């Protein structure tokens, strides 16, 4: 079981308020991603749940039990750190066995569980090595191994992939998602990378300056961002935001159109512009179009689109996909 509830949880360091007051419920077995720009308080929130930071107010309950004042070890949570935080003087075997040893498990039980974890994570051949002799991806797997042997009620991941190169990040992303499917345990995952958030999460919590901007499934957030912040943060490339007469025409202060919802043509359309840069990715083409009055707009179109710098193009927004926002940033 791993239902985690935050009730009016707040955190301040002296006079600086990091997290004002947060209410959040994480259901058992859910994969929840905390996402937001750096300094938004997402890591602090995770550390509050872990018990590595004390709350300034509010309560944290795990499976109905109030753990607000409890030590990290008693919360039955496991954490994977950004820096892996492996014990450098211990072998992989001893690193994975450490939480079991601390729990006072019998030696044969430890041996069995370590072997099993190593098998699942493809670490069997590396059990007698030290962390210093492993690659980044292997280290991250050891950190995950150390977390799974305890059979915790929830896993906490603090930007676990940001020290890996792009290719490895993709692989590890899949491995963590698969692990979640296999174990069915609650996972809370902190990242600033919205691609990780979109691809892995059952539920995304978008944070900004310590406040929750929106909670929802990845597609909810993509389709119906509650405000300008979420609209700008979720989706890659970013949503185009247009102010002025074009927005006023649609009864809004600002309108947003995702790059994939802008039609592009060389002959006719609503808005005229000149191509600044065309990025040909093969499958897609990202076109940066400089327009008069609307600024630079990004368009995502098919890979065969043959446009180049200096070409005149016409853009047409898909009317059903135009997001409208009020002056205070709320979606209309």
């Amino acid at each position: 079981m791993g239902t985690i509830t935050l009730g009016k949880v707040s955190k301040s360091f002296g006079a600086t308020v990091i997290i004002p007051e947060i209410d959040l419920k994480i259901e058992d077995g859910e994969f929840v991603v905390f996402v937001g720009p750096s300094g938004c308080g997402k890591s602090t929130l995770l550390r509050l749940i872990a018990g590595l930071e004390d709350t300034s107010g509010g309560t944290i309950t795990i499976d109905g039990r109030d753990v607000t004042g409890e030590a990290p070890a008693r919360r039955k949570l496991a954490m994977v750190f950004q820096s892996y935080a492996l014990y450098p003087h211990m072998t992989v075997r001893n690193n994975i066995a450490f939480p079991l040893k601390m729990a006072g498990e019998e030696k044969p039980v430890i041996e069995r569980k370590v072997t099993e974890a190593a098998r699942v994570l493809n670490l069997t051949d590396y059990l007698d090595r030290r962390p210093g002799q492993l690659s980044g991806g292997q280290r991250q797997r050891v950190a995950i191994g150390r977390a799974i042997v305890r059979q915790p009620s929830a896993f906490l991941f603090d930007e676990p992939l940001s020290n890996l190169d792009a290719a490895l990040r993709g692989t590890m992303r899949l491995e963590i998602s698969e692990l979640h499917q296999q174990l069915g345990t609650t996972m809370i995952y902190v990242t600033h990378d919205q691609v990780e958030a979109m691809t892995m999460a059952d539920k995304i919590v978008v944070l900004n300056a310590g406040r929750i901007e929106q909670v929802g499934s990845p597609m909810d957030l993509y389709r119906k961002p509650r405000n300008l912040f979420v609209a700008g943060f979720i989706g890659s490339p970013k949503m185009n935001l247009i102010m002025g007469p074009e927005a006023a025409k649609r009864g809004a202060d600002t309108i947003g159109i995702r790059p994939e919802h802008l039609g592009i043509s060389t002959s006719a359309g609503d808005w005229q512009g000149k191509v600044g840069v065309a990025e040909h990715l093969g499958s897609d083409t990202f076109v940066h179009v400089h327009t008069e009055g609307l600024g630079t707009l990004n368009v995502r179109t098919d890979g065969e689109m043959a446009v180049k710098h200096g070409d005149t193009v016409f853009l047409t927004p898909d009317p059903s996909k135009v997001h409208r926002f009020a002056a205070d940033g709320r979606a209309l």
Partner: protein
Amino acid sequence: MARAVSTRTKIGFSIAAWLIALLIFFPILYTIITSIKTEAEAIAGFDLIPSVTFENYVEVQTQRDYFKPFMNSVIVSVGSTLLGCLVAIPAAWSMAFAPTKRTKDILMWMLSTKMMPAAAVLVPIYLLFRDSGLLDSRIGLTVMLMLINLPIMVWMLYTYFREIPVEILEAARMDGASLWNEIVYVLTPMAVPGIASTALLNIILAWNEAFWTIRLTTTDAAPLTAFIASFSSPQGLFWAKLSAASTLAIAPILIMGWFSQRQLVRGLTFGAVK
């Protein structure tokens, strides 16, 4: 990008390094050379070729017992180091892992006590020692040497502990380790090299300390520094014997330093390079 270094530059640097090393080592070398000269040769002036005699060593040992000051040196330097570790490790620990607003100030204040000339506190310390009956006692000297080297020990250990990532300690906490287990299984094994180099340096500093050891001891607790000093006064200056006594006094620490040089250099430069 690595800078390309020509062989000629390398040779030049090597020669320069050897010359500087020789310059630094020369006083010790000359002491050893002088210790195997006759008294007449020693007084005659600068000469690098001795007649190789060991009579000075024999005489030094017959005139004074070498073993007693040697044992005093061992007890006082090792004792002050152990005592220092007992105080400095928890101090550096709390400063590194649970710092407060004043931690930096306290560290600076501790260091500033090393800037004070020792002579400035000679009289009060001497009187304190006299009144508490600690003059010429191993315990008194051990405490004194511990106290004067404590700032350096705390600073070195603090720098060392700071290099241990807090996340590793947090991971241990998440893994269910109690504070005791965290210290025994995670912190101490990671800090052992740092503690070892701090202890080594402290032994050397305590062994070589001369200001307080000479002034606070006479016979019972006198270490090797006082042993050397005793050859310079009563019968006038006998350079060869003085050199023999000095050689005997520095030999143990020189040998220890030689064997532990890697550990020492690592300790002194730790934290300088990521």
